[in-house]
């Protein structure tokens, strides 16, 4: 299992690791090029000296002058305490040896030629050397070449490199610590918006769902997240609001009829009355109960609709036929109110017949309720590409524009004084119409001006 380190710790460790790796790499590149530079420097120096000795040895033609070489070499290398020279006569005698440095024997037995000089390193006791061994031909006839070895003490290089490495590692450790610290600070600062979001999110409770995460003040990476979370909050708030509205609506709408029932029952029971009064009371109670029962079933229907209504059975429906059937149903009522029905156009769509009937019925009964006597309730149906439009119009009092956006809300009554009139229904008719139309994938709208009120339904012809 991966240990659950905090993001800050992870990033801090990562910063430290990255900076120390980079610095270590850089340091080792510098160290190795320094070392190479020293080696080149030494080889050039040694090469020069070898050339000098070579020049001296080359001229030797007799055994005497060979003996002279020691003096020449001593003169040539005076004042170079860091340099060591060893000259071996062709017969192996040591002609000259400076500083008492011991050269490695195997190197002396395999001297190099002038054309390919390759420095070698060795340690003599505590001292370290870099040197060259060269075979040089003398002019003495038939004699094997003399061997000359030149070396330079490289202790100071080693010392320098050691000091350099020490400094470098100290620097790397320090830099890693500092960058980890800086990284930690940067992460803390960078994550500040997350803490701010957290603080804001913890303020969100059921009663304070209106809290939103800051979007403008956070970095772009978080803005997206904050935006998405805000959308989620908005959806939750909406659903929550509807739920609490639903409960308070029910409570409010039930209060009036139940209070009526209680009062009239208690008043009637407060003294003995004749059977006719009791019958009257019970009948009146019965009517009120029926209204309550209807309200409850309408509320349940709406509650189901708001959780996504599935249409029980889908069939092909000719809208004009349904409207005609409804005209037939409301015929007596319309005639009594002196209102005429008019139907124009046709349209076919796929949907649930009883539900669509119910939706249209609510619009028609609404239109009838508010239609002026002697006017006409008009239903026009039209089909455009893939949608069927149904418009239900009536002449009557213009609806105040302030009420228009709420007409499809549950229990919304434009005229508050008229609520609870016997014929006024439950105040859920238009809400139910809207729910049914939405379940069919359509939309509702309403307009009211110049004493003409129109309800528009747009329904997709195919599902």
């Amino acid at each position, binding site marked *: 299992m991966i240990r659950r380190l905090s993001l800050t710790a992870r990033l801090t460790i990562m910063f430290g690791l990255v900076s120390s790796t980079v610095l270590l790499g850089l340091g080792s590149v510098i160290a190795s090029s320094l070392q190479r530079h020293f080696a080149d420097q030494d080889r050039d120096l040694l090469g020069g000296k070898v050339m000098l000795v070579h020049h001296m040895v080359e001229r030797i033609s007799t055994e005497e002058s060979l003996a002279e070489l020691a003096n020449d070499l001593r003169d040539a290398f005076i004042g170079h305490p860091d340099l060591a020279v060893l000259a071996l006569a062709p017969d192996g005698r040591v002609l000259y040896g400076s500083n008492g440095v011991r050269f490695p024997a195997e190197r002396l037995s395999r001297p190099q030629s002038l054309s390919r000089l390759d420095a070698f390193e060795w340690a003599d006791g505590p001292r370290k050397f870099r040197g060259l061994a060269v075979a040089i031909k003398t002019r003495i006839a038939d004699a094997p070449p003399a061997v000359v070895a030149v070396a330079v003490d490289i202790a100071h290089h080693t010392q320098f490199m050691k000091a350099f490495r020490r400094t470098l590692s100290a620097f790397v450790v320090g830099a890693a610590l500092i960058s980890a610290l800086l990284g930690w600070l940067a992460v803390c600062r960078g994550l500040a918006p997350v803490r701010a979001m957290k603080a804001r999110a913890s303020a969100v409770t059921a009663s304070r769902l209106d809290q939103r995460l800051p979007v403008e003040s956070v970095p772009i990476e978080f803005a997206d997240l904050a935006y998405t979370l805000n959308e989620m909050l908005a959806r939750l708030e909406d659903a929550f609001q509807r739920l609490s509205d639903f409960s308070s609506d029910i409570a409010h709408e039930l209060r009036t009829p139940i209070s009526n029932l209680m009062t009239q029952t208690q008043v009637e029971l407060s003294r003995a009355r004749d059977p006719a009064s009791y019958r009257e009371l019970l009948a009146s*109670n019965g009517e009120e*109960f*029926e209204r309550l029962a209807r309200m*409850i*079933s309408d509320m349940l229907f709406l509650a189901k609709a708001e959780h996504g209504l599935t249409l029980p059975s889908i069939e092909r429906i000719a809208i004009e036929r349904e409207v005609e059937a409804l005209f037939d149903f409301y015929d*007596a009522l319309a005639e009594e109110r002196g209102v005429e029905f008019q139907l124009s156009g046709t349209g076919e769509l796929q949907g649930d017949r009883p539900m669509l009937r119910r939706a249209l019925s609510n619009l028609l009964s609404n239109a009838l*309720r508010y239609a002026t006597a002697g006017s006409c309730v008009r239903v026009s149906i039209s089909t455009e590409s893939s949608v069927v439009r149904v418009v239900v119009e009536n002449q009557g009092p213009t609806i105040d524009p302030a009420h228009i956006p709420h007409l499809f809300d549950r229990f919304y009554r434009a005229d508050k004084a008229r609520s609870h009139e016997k014929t*006024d229904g*439950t105040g859920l008719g238009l809400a139910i119409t809207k729910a049914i139309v939405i379940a069919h994938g359509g939309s509702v709208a309403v307009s009211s001006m110049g004493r003409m009120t129109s309800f528009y339904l747009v329904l997709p012809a195919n599902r």
Partner: protein
Amino acid sequence: MKMLIVEDESKTGEYLRKGLNEAGYNTDLARDGTDGLHLALTTNYDLIILDVMLPGLDGWQILKSVRHSGQSTPVLFLTARDAVEDRVKGLELGADDYLVKPFAFAELLARVRTLLRRGRNGTEPTTLSVADLELDLLRRRVMRAGKRIDLTAKEFALLELLMRREGEVLPRTLIASQVWDMNFDSDTNVIEVAVRRLRGKIDDSFDTKLIQTVRGMGYVLEAPDPE
């Protein structure tokens, strides 16, 4: 006519029994599923009214067992949950009708009578008559006291329904559903108006009024008791 009510809610059960007894039916009441099933299997009933949610055995199990035993007694089930699946399940298991609580008692009575009538065979009458009102179903003619009365198609259908169910109180929802095929509660007084207009043609010019309003319940067509 003997019927069984299986209902665990004591108030509902008592009132159903009282109402049905007063409507002239002989009823047994079982308060849980086990008793209900025992009675259903041992007694010969004309109708069973079954609540779905019951302690012990639920309504579905009783229905299944009753049908399994080969009885074809009509079953009307009562449910508090208006879920499509519930209705479908009940009808699939062999129930004959259902009612969603809360329901109007008149509605229950009307359904009960329909179910009881369904079992009886008989030749369909071609004329209906109540007191001096006559309805000729074939010629679609209405006569009262020998006088011809003109009715619209829907008025004729409404009168036919009232006459076929002579003496039964028909709730508004049942009338809307049977005459206009509107299976929802309209929040208007449309049925009231339609009945009033029918009355205008049938009753107004006669001394004996046949169509009565039963407040809080619905409408009934019957010859008034001679007093």
